[in-house]
Every structure is written in C-alpha cells, then in structure tokens.
C-alpha cells in the first residue's frame, strides 16, 4: 500500500460539484421531458384542464358578482317607498336617513332610474317588462351600510323604526332575487373551487403517476446510480425539476386558454345574437394576481406530484 498513488479526491465529502450537478439536473430534466414529451403532455394537459376549470368558474362568478354590484351600487340596504310616494314623504325619509350616522351614505333612485338600470343590466328580462303597462319599480333609497353596523344589535331596532317612517313600504337588506343572483355567483365560486380542486388533485395524481411510471422506466438506471455512490438528491433533482416544468407549462397553458375563451366569448357577445348571458358573464378578465396564482397552483401540483412519487420510490427500494 506504501507509495500507492491515490487519485481519489482528498475530500470525498465534497460530493458532486455544484456546477456539474445542477447542469446535470437541468439537462436531464429537459431531456426526459423531450424523450417522453407525449407523456409529459398528459401531465401538462391534466394540470391545464384543472386550472382552466377553476379559472372559468372564478371568471364567471367574479363577473356575475361584479354585475350585481354595478347594478345595485354598493348599497346593502334598500328602502322601498310607496310607489306613489309624495315628494314630502321622500324628503321625510331622506331626513331620517341623514340623521342616523350608520345610514348616512345613501342615494335616491327614482322609479325611472330603477327601470332604466334594470333594463340595462338584465336585458334578457326586458320582454317580461315590456308586457307591463306601467313601470313596476317603486322609488327607493339605496343605503351603504358597513357590515359591522349591520351586525350590531341596535341596528335591528333602527330598521324597525325606519320601516314605520311615512311613505316607506319595505326595507330590505338586499333584494331577495338579487340575493339569489349573489347566491348563484357564490355557488358558482364554490362549485368552481370544488371542481377545480378535485381536478387539481386528479392532476397532481396524474403527474405522480406519470412520474412513477417514468421512475419505473428509470428504475434500473436509478439503482445503478445508487450503486456507484450517487446521492439521493442527485438522483431526484431531475424528477422534481421535471414536475416543476410540467406544472408551469400546465399553468401557463390554462391561463392562455382561459384568455382565449374570454376573448372568444366577448367576440360572440358583440355579435348579432347579442348579449344574453355573455354580456355580463364575460365583462372582465381575471385580475393578474389570480392568473399568477393559477400558474403557481400548476407548479405546486407538479412539484407535489414528483414529490409524492419520489417519496414512494424511496420507500420501496432497499437502497
């Protein structure tokens, strides 16, 4: 043993050199994506579909809520007057509202204004209105109430007092059917979250399985790598990176497709068959933080998929 030339690195603990290893990671991950590109596309497609579903529901419910908001202003309290309320009665109600600090932010909506607003925002119900001989809307005050005020106990008695003011017909915290529209919007959001969530889990599951299958394909190779002394991180890096790329592509694809749908729907909305639903369901695109969140969700799903299958594989092999 004396005089033996030892060319092994003096510090074997140094392990794989950063440059070599990270270069290998990226190179390997990209190569695998390319070699199994059609399979990667399944993972990417699944993520895209999941996020697209989620995004579509978010888009529609967001716009629906916004349409309701726009029509109703931001009032949460509607004070309906008698349809034939006199100017004096109206002035009386106005005075009452002005006196109460929690009701001081209000706006008067005349019968004509109400009719116009309704027609503008709910074009599809116009034929029903057209059948009527007279304007069915009463004059009203739309009052902005903070939710803190609305929740307080004295507020109920305040409303009771308001209800008996001369000329007041009814006081509603949101119209019932507007509330229903809101409820639809909320149901849509929830359905979207649930459906998107389920699909997102399915997507992560798909990625996990696609990667598990590639792990099977690479199993022999991975065993060989272990036997020549490669660290687990060296072996797994490319897989994680692969999941990351797949997720990112899926997320970007989903946002792109959603935008395509949005533009398409708007193009339809301005077409001759005009308006019906599309008009207010597709008025604005998702705000960009939401879009970014969708892409981030894709990346998370991708990483999660890789991580799951890696964890599993390390449990399987005796090393």
């Amino acid at each position, binding site marked *: 043993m004396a005089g033996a030339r030892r060319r092994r690195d003096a510090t074997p603990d140094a392990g794989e050199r950063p440059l070599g290893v990270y270069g290998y990671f990226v190179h390997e991950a990209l190569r695998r994506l390319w070699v199994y590109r059609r399979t990667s596309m399944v993972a990417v497609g699944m993520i895209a579909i999941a996020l697209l579903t989620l995004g579509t529901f978010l888009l529609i419910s967001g716009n629906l809520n916004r349409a309701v908001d726009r029509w109703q202003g931001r009032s949460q309290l509607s004070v309906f007057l008698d349809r034939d309320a006199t100017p004096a009665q109206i002035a009386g109600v106005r005075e009452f509202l002005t006196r109460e600090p929690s009701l001081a932010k209000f706006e008067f909506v005349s019968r004509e204004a109400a009719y116009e607003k309704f027609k503008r925002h709910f074009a599809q119900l116009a034929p029903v209105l057209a059948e009527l001989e007279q304007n069915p809307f009463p004059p009203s005050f739309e009052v902005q109430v903070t939710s803190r005020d609305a929740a307080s106990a004295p507020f109920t008695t305040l409303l009771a007092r308001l209800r008996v003011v001369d000329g007041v017909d009814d006081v509603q915290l949101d119209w019932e059917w507007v509330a229903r529209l809101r409820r639809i919007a909320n149901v849509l959001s929830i359905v979207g979250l649930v459906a998107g969530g389920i699909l997102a889990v399915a997507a992560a599951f798909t990625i996990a399985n696609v990667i598990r299958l590639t792990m099977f394909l690479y199993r022999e190779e991975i065993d060989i790598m272990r036997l*020549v*002394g490669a660290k687990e991180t060296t072996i797994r890096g490319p897989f994680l990176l692969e999941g990351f790329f797949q997720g990112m592509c899926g997320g970007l694809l989903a946002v792109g497709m959603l935008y395509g749908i949005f533009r398409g729907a708007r193009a339809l909305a301005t077409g001759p068959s005009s308006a019906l639903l599309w008009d207010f369901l597709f008025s604005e695109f998702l705000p960009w933080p939401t879009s970014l969140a969708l892409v981030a969700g894709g990346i998370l799903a991708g990483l999660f998929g890789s991580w799951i299958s890696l964890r599993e594989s390390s449990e399987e092999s005796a090393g």
Partner: protein
Amino acid sequence: MIDFYHVTKRFDRYSIALHDVTFHADKGEFVFLTGPSGAGKSTILKLILRQLLPSEGQIVVNGRNLATLKRAQLPLFRREIGMVFQDFKLIERMTIFENLSFVMTVLGVPPRDHKKKAYAVLRAVNLHHRLNAYPPQLSGGEQQRVAIARALINDPYLIIADEPTGNLDPDLSADVMQIFIEANLRGSTVLLATHDREMIRRTGRRVVHLEKGRVGEERPQQAPEVPDSPSTFMQWGSL
C-alpha cells in the same frame, strides 16, 4: 480491508446463499473468489457493496461495519469502491462517455477532466473508439470492458469484480487481468470472482473457494508462473 465474520445470507426458506462464511482480505491484497455456479460469489460481492444486508454475522469493509452504516453514508462509502457487475449495469440511455462522466460527476471529478480521464481508461481496455456508442450498440465483451473501465476510473481503494472476463476471449482476458494487477500494484485492494481456473493458475494469487455457500479450503497460493514484477506481465499482451 474486508472482513467477513460468520456471515449467513438467506433469501428465503429455500435458498441459503451463504452459510457461516468467514474470510479476510488485507489492504493491498489481490484475492480470487471461486466456486461453481450458484456457490454465492456474487452474493459476497453484493454484501461488500451493501447492495444486500447479511441475515447473520458482521461485515467490515475499509474499517466500516456495514450493519451500522447509515443510509446517508452509503453513497460516500460506495464511492470508494469500484465494482464490475456480472451483468455490467451500464446505463443504457447514456453513451459510454456519459456513463463514465456520470460516475466522475458523482466522484467529484471536475467536469473539465472528464474527457481526458474517460479516454485514458477506455484506451486501457481498447475501446477508446467507441466513446459515443450506447451500451446496446456494443458486443457483450465490449460492454464488459466498459464496466471494467468504469470501475477503475479514479483509482478506488477497493476493486471488486464479478466474472470480469466471462465474455472475453483468452487474449483479452489476459489484458484485462493485467489491468487489475496494475491497479493492485498502485495500491488498490482487488477481489475478483471468477471460474476461469486457467487464469487463477497463471496469476497465482490467494484463492477463496466457495462451495454451496460455504468457504472451502483456502487453497494455498500456488507457485506463480508469473512473478510479481510488472515487466514480465507484458507476455499477457500489451495494453
């Protein structure tokens, strides 16, 4: 360097590959492991690389007790060993060069040295012209030589080779033996499983004989036809 204390390896109720095996190999020694097919030669080599764990007994390699070796230490431990597998275990989707380069990356050889080292070690097994071929494009003997080249790269402390000349003709086998002997002279401990009696006879080193999982008589070192000095090795063929 290698110590087996009463090692038994059972795979299942029916196959007991090793039965109370005790043997020892010194640092810098060159030892042959022989025995008929199924005697347990590969099992011993796999135990040394900690590819398998013994059912009973203790194994100490390079001062480390393999039973207490933690999972995280395994890669570092294995990097000190160059192993030639009976089934080669080359990565099929990588070229010969990439196979060697990957091992060098793992061993911490700077990337700029990879090309030079790979060429040198393939030159020794006469395969330098196949640097960019994939393993399935090589003949059986050529794959075996790549596996040998990979094991020898960067001079490991311990070289264990499983039937490294099984697919080679006698002339090439002699060349390859010469390479192992030179690595041994440079200081590596060598443990070599083979059933080529002629080669064992000619090389004239210590032999551990296995028979149905038991160590038979350690045949005393026969009078070597070839003395230990490098010069005369040349009669085996030149590298």
